């Protein structure tokens, strides 16, 4: 797996695990954390808290730097002007 794909795969997984904990708590649910192996500990104790402390604009900038289709040409379709159509 390419480094960017490895990072994205793990980042998505552990960010979702942490988010599911918080959202479940808000809805009065208790969900168990996954088993704590070295990789789990690193992502849940280091990566997720650091990611959450970064401002959204910085996170967005990092996400935009990842390789992917979003870095190719995607034209925005022009919208019709407001006002009566005819």
């Amino acid at each position, binding site marked *: 797996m390419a480094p960017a794909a490895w990072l994205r795969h793990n980042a998505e997984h552990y960010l979702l695990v942490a988010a599911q904990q918080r959202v479940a708590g808000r809805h009065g*649910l208790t969900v168990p954390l996954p088993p704590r192996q070295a990789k789990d500990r690193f992502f849940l104790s280091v990566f997720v808290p650091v990611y959450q402390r970064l401002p959204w604009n910085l996170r967005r900038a990092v996400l935009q730097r*990842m390789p*992917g*289709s979003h870095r190719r040409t995607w034209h925005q379709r022009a919208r019709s002007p407001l006002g009566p159509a005819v």
Partner: protein
Amino acid sequence: MATRTVIVGGGAAGIGAAGAFKGAMPAGEVVVFTEFEDAAYSPCGIPYVHGKEIPSFEALFLATKEQYAQQGIDIRYETMVTELDLDAGAVTVAGKGREPFDRLIVATGFDYADPGVPGTDLQGLYYVKNIRRAMEWDKVLDSVKAAVVVEATPLGLEMVTALAHRGIETHVIDHRPWALSDLADPDIVEPIHQAWADAGVKMHFGVELKGFVGEGRVRAVETSEGSIDADLAVVCTKKVPNNALAKAAGLKLGSTGGVIVDDRMATSVDRVFAAGDCTEIPLGVTNVGVQGLTGSHAYAQGKVAGINAGGGHRTYQPVYIPWGMVAGDWMIGGVAFGETAAEALGIPYVMGQAEGISRARYFPGVRKVKVKLLAEPDTLRLIGAQMAGGEGIKERADFLAMAVKTGITLDDLAFMENVYSPPIGALNEPIALAAQNGLSRLGR
């Protein structure tokens, strides 16, 4: 000038591309290679045949082989492409040799993520994909007493519901805390859990899969909470792009593993297009690539690729992913972000939610409709929605996808016009109520 286009893959993207290519260039030659016995059927309908809601698999086919031949689409069935030689402009077909192309469309689809546990070589593990295998499995289901569905993904949800509907003792295991938890919020999924409980489904959430156990054939599924006896395991892990050929040929892949494409579905190599589950497409809300969309997305992408391969000009757009599904007599759905996904990415949002009704309160058959709207805090532009209810969820998800795409705000939705007709619509539209509640929470 007539062009020879080769398409690798006979699913929704491949067949959509073939038809669109012939439309754009009637004199052009198009050859579709598929490893399977059939092309162009609706695999999404397979769980509903298993659940006896659709009487036969034949209903899932879109057209006959003769009809494709009459349209000038040359489909080579049960034919495996083993190499894409992009420099020479040819593909290698197992046992047949090389086939040249002027344009190539890669539509190789998806695989299920490897469960990564012992016992995946046992018989009795069902990966729902190919309709011929589904026909064989449907006969097996007649004698199955207990089944375990591995992971409550969208397909997993459909298979759990189908197996329970068929009267099979059905277990679902998932390491995540609730069904569809990468996509939907717990309050939205709650009616699904209730419907499953009513149908006797045994739910095992927060439980790790440890392996499949048996001698030649699966007889139990081992989990972190013990063993579950079963004579069938349906593996519904996440869809991953089937990109071994594309990668070996040197096509650039994104961080999802999907082939990188632009809005013409053109890849990093001239004359080569890609479409469907093997690609990644930007999500409009964040402009980050996503992968593993629906058959509807794949078919539309295939048509864009086919038109462009045929010399036309058509563009695809970033996606907003309206989704919806049914379990029991409940429907759930949404678009783009819910609370969980927004929390995971750390996207700032404000939320409005309401519980409305689907018809006039006095009209027979009226059902509750719960709506949650997420909006960007400064502009109040909609960034996502989630819904649960008895009817009208699909139509609201489609509408809200267009609302997110066009920059509609909570202010717009709070006083939107809506159809008021007692049998089909209530005085107060639940979407408008949710937006009004969101504005009220913000003191606006």
